[in-house]
């Protein structure tokens, strides 16, 4: 089974290159290729999860054992996010047919392939390559799927992302100059001796800011509102829900394995706190649904950054819980908001015309603000008990900011909800609540159903996540798995 894992990256890549050609000859065959590939990917990863022995393993690529060759590292956390990538890729598949379809679908496959690679890769340079691929396919997708405003937003994103890439590369170069290796396991081995210094810290910060562009890290996230508000909703959902989490995953991985300097976590914590403040406050004034969601996403990612700065296993658990929860919620909300562009006042009386959409919005909003017993509550509970346990007063500030942000979040989300449930229109305002398109509503309902399922099964899922977190936290296990693997298991 393990050797099939490569296919989850290789097949979408292959599909991405072949799709335009196939589509030219047979559209009917072409449209099924993408979903089929992603479906197969889900199946492979799902099987691995169900039938694997729970132990992490590493796959060397190209016949050279790490640290010389490059490898994929598969532990429960990587598997989880790889699976989420393929699944969300399938759910948000851009099936709309027009002259751009081949381009769009090929880019989407590329995006999924590179995102999966981002989750699985065990090599710093490989990570960088996949990260660039994600960036390129994202630009293409935003530009290909939408309007003139989206082009402008893309340009901005492009420049920012480009500078970010340079910074990341600079950081990687620093590390390579210092240690002579880019394999994560090898780096983890060398880090206590060679990277536990100012140079290592500088390298980490450069990488943090570079990758932070995608992870919506505070000062480098100015592209977020415009892009999410103008790109197609399905794409925004994928970007906000998944890609930002993958970038976060990379940062978490680097932090756990290599960089143990207290300053590193401190910077993350401060930037996280600033992200929460800026995002939530900006969302409070947002007059447009999708911009509001974008700002709220910045705020939520800030909360996850605060969690990343937490030291021990429960911190990792908080990161995972918050990330998965936000993935579920934001995807659902962006799908709901598919047709809700323009002024928030348009949503007046929406619940009367579309009770399901109104109900789903309330459900998502409640979970987002952490109403028990919805899963958002448990994620936040893990976070705040962990925050309160730290001795550094900065964490206490983080806790207070988080609590304040939640109040503001509840205030603006329920202002919208109250608007939706308003029955009597004021003078001069006709009820012309937008119709929530059938498909996006169905997709949103899917996420709503998922949310309720998680609520019911929160206890076993929590335990499973705890195991995942414990495994991700274990640096020795990572080193051992990658570097001391018998030759026979290589493919």
């Amino acid at each position, binding site marked *: 089974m393990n050797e099939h894992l490569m296919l989850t990256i290789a097949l979408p890549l292959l599909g991405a290159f072949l799709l335009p050609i196939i589509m030219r000859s047979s559209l009917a065959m072409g449209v099924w290729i993408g979903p089929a590939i992603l479906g197969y990917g889900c199946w492979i990863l799902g099987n691995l999860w169900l039938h694997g022995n729970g132990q992490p393993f590493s796959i060397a690529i190209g016949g050279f054992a790490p640290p010389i060759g490059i490898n994929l590292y598969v532990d429960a956390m990587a598997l989880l996010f790889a699976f989420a990538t393929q699944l969300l890729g399938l759910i948000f598949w851009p099936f709309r047919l027009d002259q751009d379809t081949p381009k769009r679908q090929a880019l989407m496959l590329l995006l999924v392939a590179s995102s999966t690679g981002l989750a699985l890769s065990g090599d710093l340079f490989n990570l960088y390559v996949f990260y660039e691929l994600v960036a390129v396919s994202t630009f293409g997708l935003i530009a290909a799927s939408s309007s003139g405003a989206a082009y402008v937003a893309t340009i901005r994103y492009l420049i920012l992302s480009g500078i970010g890439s340079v910074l990341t590369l600079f950081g990687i170069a620093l590390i390579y100059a210092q240690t002579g290796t880019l394999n994560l396991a090898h780096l983890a081995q060398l880090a206590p001796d060679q990277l536990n210094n100012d140079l290592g810290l500088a390298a980490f910060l450069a990488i943090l800011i570079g990758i932070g562009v995608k992870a919506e890290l505070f000062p480098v996230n100015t592209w977020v509102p415009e892009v999410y508000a103008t790109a197609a909703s399905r794409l925004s959902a994928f970007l906000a829900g998944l890609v930002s989490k993958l970038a976060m995953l990379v940062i978490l991985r680097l932090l756990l394995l290599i960089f143990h300097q207290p300053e590193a976590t401190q910077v993350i914590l401060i930037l996280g706190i600033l992200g929460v403040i800026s995002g939530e406050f900006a969302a*409070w004034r947002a007059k447009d649904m999708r911009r509001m969601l974008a700002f709220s996403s910045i705020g939520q990612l800030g909360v996850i950054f605060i969690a990343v700065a937490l030291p021990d296993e429960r911190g990792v658990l908080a990161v995972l819980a918050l990330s998965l929860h936000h993935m579920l919620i934001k995807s659902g909300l962006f799908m709901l908001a598919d047709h809700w562009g323009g002024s928030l006042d348009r949503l007046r009386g929406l619940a009367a015309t579309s009770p399901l959409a109104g109900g789903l919005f309330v459900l998502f909003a409640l979970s987002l603000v952490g109403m028990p017993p919805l899963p958002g509550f448990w994620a936040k509970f893990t976070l705040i008990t962990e925050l309160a346990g730290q001795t550094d007063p900065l964490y206490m500030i983080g806790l207070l900011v988080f609590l304040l942000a939640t109040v503001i979040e509840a205030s603006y989300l*329920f202002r919208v909800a109250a608007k939706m*449930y308003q029955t*009597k229109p004021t003078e001069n305002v006709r009820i012309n609540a937008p119709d929530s398109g059938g498909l996006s509503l169905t997709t949103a309902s899917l996420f709503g159903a998922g949310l309720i399922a998680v609520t019911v099964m929160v206890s076993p899922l929590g335990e499973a996540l705890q195991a995942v977190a414990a495994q991700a936290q274990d640096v020795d296990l990572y080193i051992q798995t990658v570097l001391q693997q018998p030759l026979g298991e290589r493919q």
Partner: protein
Amino acid sequence: MILTPLDELLLFSGATLLVALILGRGLAAGWMVTILYGGQLLTLIKMAALGYSDTIIHASINFEIMGQSLSWRFDALSWFFALITVASALLSSWFSCGEWERSFKQHGGNIWLYHSAMALNVFTMLILLASGDLLSLFIGWELVSWAGFLLMAMAGGVATRAAMRYITYAMAGGMAVFGGIALVYVAAGSLQYEAILTAVDQMSTTQLWMLVVMFGSGFGIKMGLLPFHLWQAPAYAETPGPGSAFLGAISSRMGLFAILLVLVKLFGIVNIDSLKIPFTLIDARDLLAWIAVFTIILPTFTAMKQNDARHLLAWHGIGQGGYMLLGVVVADAMGGAGGLLHVFNHATYQAALFMAVTAVIHRTGTSDLNKLGGLVVRMPLSFVVLLVGIIGLAGLPPMNGFVSKWLVYRSLLNEGMPLLFLAAVIGTLGTILSVYKLIHNIFLGQLRIEHEQVKEAPWSMMVPMLILAAIIFITGLFPGIPLAWVASVQEVIGLPVTDYTLGGVESVSGSLDMIWVIGVLFAGFGIGAVIFYSAGRSKRVHQLDNYAGGHFLSADVRYQYSDNFYAGLMHLIGGWYRGSFLWLEKSVTSLVDFISLVMQGLYRRANAEFYLLSTALFVIAWVVI
């Protein structure tokens, strides 16, 4: 599996919610739901042993989630509050059946939503009251907050705005509690009550201070304690009639319940007493007492200025909460008993008052105190209920409000707190003045021409109102009945237990026997009646068969004085109404708005790359230095 009585109660309550959800649009939905509330009350009565002892009944369900165990159980404290909750739900629901329900639907109300929201409120409150650890307490707390939001927001328009304000306050309170729980968890390593009880002894003063502030303000927001009181009156007043009776009776007492449980039972009033405020003579307990007293005075005098009967009552609801907290904070046998008894008494008269006002709205269509008057001749029974209610609210004999307030005053004097006593009396003075305005402007004086045809409220409304009025009088005559429950509650939360008799309390520092008090009072009434009837026959005249200023009156001449009530008094104290808290609230909102503007500006800037580079340079420079 054998169901414990608590399981039965929760199942019953859940079933009520289900019935309301499924059949809430049906014909006799109101009656069905009411009968189910009756069932809940019976289950509660089955557990009556709780009210007279310190036993505990556990629920069979408990969970183990992410290393936390959740459990639910009832003790005397829960039972006492649950009794009030379910009884007021039963009577409010009864009140809403039949004619009120029909007229509500005619005016475009959503009766399904109303029944469901009520049932949800009761269900979540019972879950909160049954909480067996801090985590389940928080879960219940949040559920209650959101259920309350549903009931407050359902009327739309002004009500939704008030509810939005409420939920922002409630979220702030909830988050303060959430933070407090995190701190407790870290200090005690668990959220079980036993673990916390042992951990409290080892806490440092700073820790305890933080916890008292976080829990105190979090729970205090629900109680409407100063300075977090602004949301409550509009939110309760704009809720559809019977809903406001229910909310006014019990909803904000959930805050008191949580304060009793966490601050009094777990942290211990002695520990709170030891928290001194530096450079002053007062400690945390005095602070709480003074907050309670200002919560009595300011909202009560705000109530006096209201021109809408519902708002007037809702403002009093805030003020009366102050007496409860005051009694509990004094924390001797009498004060504790007074504070707790006032929860019960307040629920009875507040529900009766809101119902009476709703009955008036139902018949006349308005609760504007400047557009009513003279209704005593058309709605005499409602008048009696309102009269009984305001006597209770003002804390005068022979109604039950007198007993609880007397206990609180007595304890303040016994414990040597004359300033607090004086302040509490000032509050009562304001109460008396404003309830007189209420009854005068609605029922006394000149009947308006448009109300000539008004009829008495229908029996579906009248019966629950009369039941409440009877309870108000009977528990005023025999306060020993609720005092028995109160004594068990005191024992459970670790306060000194009061020595009660059927007619009041026995104490070396001053006893009260209401049977005697009322006996003397009625003897006085009897003498008055004898004089009145021995003076010969009185003649009944029409209200317009009268004259004023040398002129005969006609229907178009308004001689009822209702606008700018208490003009003379307002001339004296009017300058004190400065709206400082409104100003405070507005400035907080503007601050948030301003920060939001800045933050949005940050994201609107085009030169994002500049941020990136400067941040990178900054952090790298920081590392090197």
